[in-house]
């Protein structure tokens, strides 16, 4: 067990959650709750893997994954924005649909190999003591993309005009509508973008950070954890990134706990009784619930909440217009 390894690996795997969570933040900030992240990620992972395998080009794979997630999310948009269906149920069905599509189309991919997104060490930055080693050495290119994504998405949401419009549409769609901002267009757009991010997050698993296609085990609930992360992060990309990285490190720590025979000066129970590892495997999910519990009391203390119109279909003419 080495702290540097844990931090390094945590940042790596945390990137997957970060990408998916930031996509979902953009969608939810516009007032659309898309619970189909898991399905979109799995479809993205499959599409990325399949395309990269068949074309031999990993970049086409990434593109395909982004596209696959985006297209799937448009179905959610159609049903919830145009048909005003319940967003929770629609998101669930998106998960089923994405999973089904990924399994059917991904038949026979298990065990194949593809080109993967390369790792890279940043020349000068990697020389910084400690930080250079864990942040800028031998990381996947998508991890660096994740670094850039954090400030860019924060700036985009809070400091630009499109960001202002997203927030307005998610908080009070009628206000945006009366000022000529098309609520439907914005909601469709950011549902699509959220889907693209989820697709990319899926591909980040299958052809970049932990390559391979293991049918539905490829994502193993990370889409749901990403959604929990959004709530935990109170719809703020910076907090989501922090949470994602922490979560990644925790996973790695739990994995590494199984290794040594001695732990904290005593016999390591996980080493001697391998069945106890099931409890370690349980931890990420249990911690997600605990994080939500902790986050909810924090949100209550600071009186922060979800975007006010989250989950509400917008129909012109209802309530005050």
């Amino acid at each position, binding site marked *: 067990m080495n702290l540097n390894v844990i931090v390094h690996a945590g940042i790596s795997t945390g990137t997957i959650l970060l990408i998916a969570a930031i996509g979902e933040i953009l969608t939810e900030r516009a007032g659309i709750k898309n619970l189909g992240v898991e399905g979109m990620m799995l479809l993205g992972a499959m599409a990325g893997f399949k395309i990269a395998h068949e074309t031999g080009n990993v970049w086409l794979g990434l593109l395909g994954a982004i596209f696959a997630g985006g297209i799937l999310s448009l179905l959610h948009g159609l049903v919830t924005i145009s048909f005003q269906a319940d967003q929770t149920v629609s998101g669930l069905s998106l998960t089923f649909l994405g999973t089904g599509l990924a399994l059917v189309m991904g038949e026979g991919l298990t065990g194949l190999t593809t080109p993967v997104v390369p790792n890279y060490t940043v020349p000068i930055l990697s020389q910084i003591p400690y930080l250079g080693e864990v942040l800028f050495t031998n990381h996947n290119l998508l991890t660096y993309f994740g670094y850039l994504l954090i400030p860019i998405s924060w700036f985009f949401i809070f400091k630009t*005009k499109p960001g*202002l419009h997203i927030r*307005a549409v998610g*908080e*009070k769609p009628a206000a*945006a509508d009366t*000022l000529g901002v098309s609520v439907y267009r914005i909601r469709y757009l950011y549902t699509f973008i959220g889907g693209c991010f989820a697709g990319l997050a899926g591909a980040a698993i299958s052809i970049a950070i932990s390559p391979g296609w293991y049918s539905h085990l490829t994502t193993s609930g990370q889409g749901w954890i990403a959604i929990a992360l959004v709530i935990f992060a109170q719809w703020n990309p910076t907090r989501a990134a922090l949470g994602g990285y922490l979560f990644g490190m925790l996973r790695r720590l739990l994995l590494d706990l199984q290794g040594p025979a001695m732990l904290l000066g005593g016999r390591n129970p996980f080493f001697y009784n391998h069945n106890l590892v099931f409890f370690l495997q349980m931890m990420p999910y249990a911690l997600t619930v605990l994080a939500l519990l902790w986050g909810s009391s924090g949100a209550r203390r600071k*009186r922060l909440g979800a975007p006010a119109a989250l989950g509400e279909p917008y129909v*012109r003419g209802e309530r005050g217009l």
Partner: protein
Amino acid sequence: MNPIEPTTETFAVEMKDITLRFPGVLANDRVNFTLRKGEIHALLGENGAGKSTLMNVLMGLYKPNAGSIFVDGKRVSFNSPRDAIAAGIGMVHQHFMLVPNQTVTENILIGLDEPKFVLNLKKYDQKVKDLANQFGIQIDPTSLIWQLSVGEQQRVEILKILYRGAQILIMDEPTAVLAPQEANELIDTLKGMARQGKSIIFISHKLNEVTAVADRLTILRKGQTTAEGITLGGITRESLASLMVGREIIFNLHKQEQAAGNVVLELNKVSALNNKNLLALRDVDLCLREGEILGIAGVAGNGQSELVEVITGLRECTGHILLEGKNIANKSPQASIAAGLAHIPEDRIGVGSAPNLSLTKNVIMKNYDHEPISSDWRINYTAADLRAKELKEQYKIQAPTIETQARKLSGGNLQKLILARELSSKPRLIVAMQPTRGLDVGAIEGVQELLLEERTQGSAILLVSEDLDELLSLSDRIAVMYEGEIVGTLNQKDADINTIGLMMTGSLRGDSSCSPEEQTTPAQASAEEPTSEQEAVTTFTEPRQFDRSKIVPMHRPFMESKREDKQTDDEGGE
């Protein structure tokens, strides 16, 4: 058409033969409307006459089925508000269209071409400030909307329009939410803007207000124009009223003088927080007797909702609330209901009813666990249907059947449904919040008559309303709320709009005591000594002595805590 009008005049706006059909409703039927440059033109009509719809057509929110619109003499066809804004038209909606957790400047910048991408808020804060100064409007561009009072929010709405360079302003019932003095201020501001060349459409259903502000007026009734662009000279209020309603309005409610009986409701030093954890009720003392209507006046957001919620058990509080001697503070809504409380909530669809459920299921909402509806774990739906049928008949609720979903009822009929449910339980205390808002004239009279009937039968009624005319005509006493306090209580016969208005803005404090006999006007209060009888009922109310020095300046005790909250805004994060 007005004969003195030159036919060649270019109007700021001209709407011809506008027809708009909604499923089952003809909202506008060949409506004509013209607006001259630099005038204030009142658009008058009852609720539901089609005024707002017509203006939404002008704003490009709805496309008319027929008719044409000219702006500055040019034919236009707006597909969205964006087009209308580009043509120089802006609207202040009755319900403000502001994003609560964004700043004033951010709200103003939504939907504009400039800034192009990056929001440089500092630069635009200054621009907003300059614009506000130009029209004599006071506002801090960096405050968050939810921190502002209703009047301030309205100013933001007006700035939003002016910032877009609008020449034509539509004000949808702008005074409905203001205290009388604030309303006068607003009217002055509007007149000033008209002098600077803006053309203003002023939507209203209040006759006296219209006569004070408007150069010309157009009246709608049931979607049709009954008067178009008439000037006010030589027209009586009565004839205006009949153009608006189509018959003589009789505002003589059958309210008889009657002595109030025993105390039904007592509030003793009740304080409560609002949803944002700020103090919204501060040491409220109240008392209400049998056969008495106590009106609560105040500008929206001064604690009225919270007052109603603590009494009805929906909000936690400190202090005592005694209903017939039983403390119901911090008990469940069920406890208040059991103690004989009926509640007519402000939000009929959101709180008062279950919109997708049948009339029957809405009617039994509060007595589903009593005989004859239910005696054990079962519900006897036959008995429930019977009850629903009875009430539908008795209260003349117009609906196809008792199976009809509540959301399919019109506003007036839904209110009748709620009243039927609440009043049929023979309540001791009725808490009614804005019971007539949004209803048409016929329905309003019906609701008011029902409340007066309950008063005759000895119920105590707490009536919260923003409509001062309604309060003055129904109440026996009127208590005025300002920033969570009762700043004074007046007898109906001593109350006048001006005094109430001063109290509503916190500029005047009066006496607040319980006994109606001892109620005095503020000017007399200092001379009066509390009698022994008064002491008996007001053991907890120290009658505040009126004194001219108490004409306190506007103060905002919440301000400090509000400012702190700014840090919790999203952007305050990492």
